[in-house]
């Protein structure tokens, strides 16, 4: 019999609804597991044991009262840039280290309404800026498949929690790849819905024209379940999209017949080395075997994605993070005048990557440089979005790598630009606002590595094509089942 902690969200919700197991039992087992291994994995910054126990009791009551909760009793890891009323919400930053959220993010509230139980707040790169979780000022998170390696980022804590069975669903946010990359690194589905599909009320803003909340899960079915619970218009987020959401969890496919899948000419996987080239070539063949017709598409401007992103995202970050000034919340470093107080507070509260991005963004928006940098990047963004429009005139979905390598060792990307390149394959979709996900597609042992590490295939669809995207990912997952061929290093973590 499968242990409670290893059950999928779909299975847990079904069993809790039918009374086979109580939410209280699921949560008790999860908390005990977190207690035994999170000292090693470091997925959580805050574990909400008492809150979770109380929530589980309420879920059991609601089930007894006949409520049909789609996520009944599902243990949830919430990235620590999303507010949960009454709990510490840090963004992995010293500037918010002791801040208690006075309200709950809509996406979190919808998950809890659907019966999920928040186990804790998960570590992340500071203000979601990074691709390894190493930019967190508050803790180290390790990859459950090799503790010497990073879990990816910025939603690395949520990813590690789900991979290590410390939650069944993790909530992440993706600005340039921050759900898909840790998903790929931790053998998970990392799903970024269309921009505006999930409310960002209560998500602490990094780059507002890009940020989107989505789930990290061990199965596509679970990702669909989480998406169905979260998606939809919210009056509290003026950028959330007011159009009907098609439920996805009941509409997953088992084959790809009739679908045209675009393979991107400019993303030559030979450049990624023999191992990854073989993995991706096999993945594309598997898509074909499942009935898809593969066609070549071109994204000529995608190569400019990283350059475009590293002007637009820092520009928006410099503006959004202006609110952290020591006046209304968070850290304050005292000084005799207000200007010095601002400068010292921000110097003490922000880490190096956040400072770098604030400086880049401030520069790109400053008088004399605005047109040359910021506006030019916004125009490049138009070209990238047009590339995708042209491609989707020829195909239904696009398949490509999620990352250019498997999870790397701590400290391996100390040069900032080398870290920025980690999002090479995920940034173009973010700039175009498109729904995209990573799904496990194989294993490779990196040079000098001691264990096989997961590799992710990225699938991307046109705006609002979540149902098709999740459906296709489900067919691929079901036919290949790469995710379940290996288990995380939890036994050694316990030892």
């Amino acid at each position, binding site marked *: 019999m499968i242990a409670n902690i290893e059950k999928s969200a779909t299975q847990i919700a079904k069993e809790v609804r039918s009374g086979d197991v109580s939410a209280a039992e699921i949560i008790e087992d999860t908390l005990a597991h977190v207690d035994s291994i999170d000292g090693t994995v470091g997925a959580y910054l805050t574990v909400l044991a008492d809150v979770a126990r109380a929530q589980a009791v309420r879920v059991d009551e609601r089930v007894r009262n006949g409520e049909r909760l789609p996520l009944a009793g599902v243990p949830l890891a919430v990235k620590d840039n999303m507010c949960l009323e009454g709990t510490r919400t840090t963004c992995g930053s010293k500037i918010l280290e002791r*801040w*208690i959220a*006075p*309200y709950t993010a809509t996406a979190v509230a919808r998950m809890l309404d659907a019966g999920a139980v928040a186990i804790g707040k998960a570590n992340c790169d500071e203000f979601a800026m990074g691709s390894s979780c190493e930019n967190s000022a508050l803790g180290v998170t390790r990859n459950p498949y090799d503790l010497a390696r990073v879990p990816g980022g910025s939603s690395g804590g949520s990813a590690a929690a789900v991979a290590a069975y410390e939650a069944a669903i993790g909530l992440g946010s993706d600005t340039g790849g921050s759900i898909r990359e840790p998903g790929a690194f931790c053998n998970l589905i990392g799903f970024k819905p269309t*921009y*505006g599909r999930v409310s960002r009320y209560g998500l602490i803003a990094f780059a507002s*024209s890009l940020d989107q909340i989505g789930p990290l899960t061990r199965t596509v079915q679970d990702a669909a379940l989480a998406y169905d619970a979260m998606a939809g218009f919210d009056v509290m987020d003026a*950028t959330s*999209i007011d159009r009907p959401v098609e439920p996805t969890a009941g509409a997953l496919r088992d084959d790809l017949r009739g679908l045209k899948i675009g393979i991107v000419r400019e993303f030559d996987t030979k450049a990624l080395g023999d191992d990854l080239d073989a993995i991706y070539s096999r993945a594309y063949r598997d898509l074909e075997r499942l009935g898809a017709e593969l066609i070549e598409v071109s994204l000529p401007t995608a190569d*400019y994605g990283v*350059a*475009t992103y*590293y*002007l637009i995202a820092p520009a928006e970050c*410099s503006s959004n993070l*202006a609110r952290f*000034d*020591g*006046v*209304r*919340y*968070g*850290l*304050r470093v005292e*000084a*005799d*005048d*207000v*200007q010095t*107080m601002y*400068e*010292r507070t*921000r*110097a003490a509260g922000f880490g*190096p990557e956040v*400072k*770098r991005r*604030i*400086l*880049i963004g*401030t*520069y790109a928006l400053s008088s004399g*440089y605005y047109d*040359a940098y910021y*506006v*030019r*990047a*916004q*125009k*490049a*963004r*138009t*070209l990238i*979005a047009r590339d995708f429009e042209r491609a989707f005139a020829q195909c239904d979905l696009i398949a490509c790598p999620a990352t250019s390598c498997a999870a790397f060792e701590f400290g391996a990307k100390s040069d900032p*630009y080398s870290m*920025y390149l980690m999002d090479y394959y995920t940034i173009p979709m973010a*700039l*175009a*606002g498109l729904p995209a996900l990573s799904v496990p597609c194989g294993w490779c042992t990196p040079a000098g590595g001691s264990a096989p590490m997961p590799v992710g295939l990225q699938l991307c669809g046109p*705006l609002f094509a979540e149902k098709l995207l999740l459906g296709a990912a489900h067919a691929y997952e079901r036919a290949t089942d790469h995710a379940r061929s290996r288990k995380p290093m939890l036994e050694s973590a316990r030892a």
Partner: protein
Amino acid sequence: MPSDSIDIRYVATLARLALTDEEIAIFGRQLGDLLGHVNALAELDTASVAATAQVVESRNVVRDDAPRPCLDRERVLAAAPQRQGAFFRVPRIIAE
């Protein structure tokens, strides 16, 4: 694209960020490197391209100008580093 080196001190002042001399040296070099990379955007012909601020349909959002419940003032003020009554307290703004 502009190629002159960045005046990090000036940018840091605009960003209300105190930097050490060491940070100025490191960030100056790193930002110079990054600008070298982003200057590749000059290769794109964008003369007749409109700028994209946001990709998905957007519209002005208005609501009725009517009172409605909001966060409790005491809860919000409780998070302030310093308060005085119903106000956030800050250091001197105007010199004597």
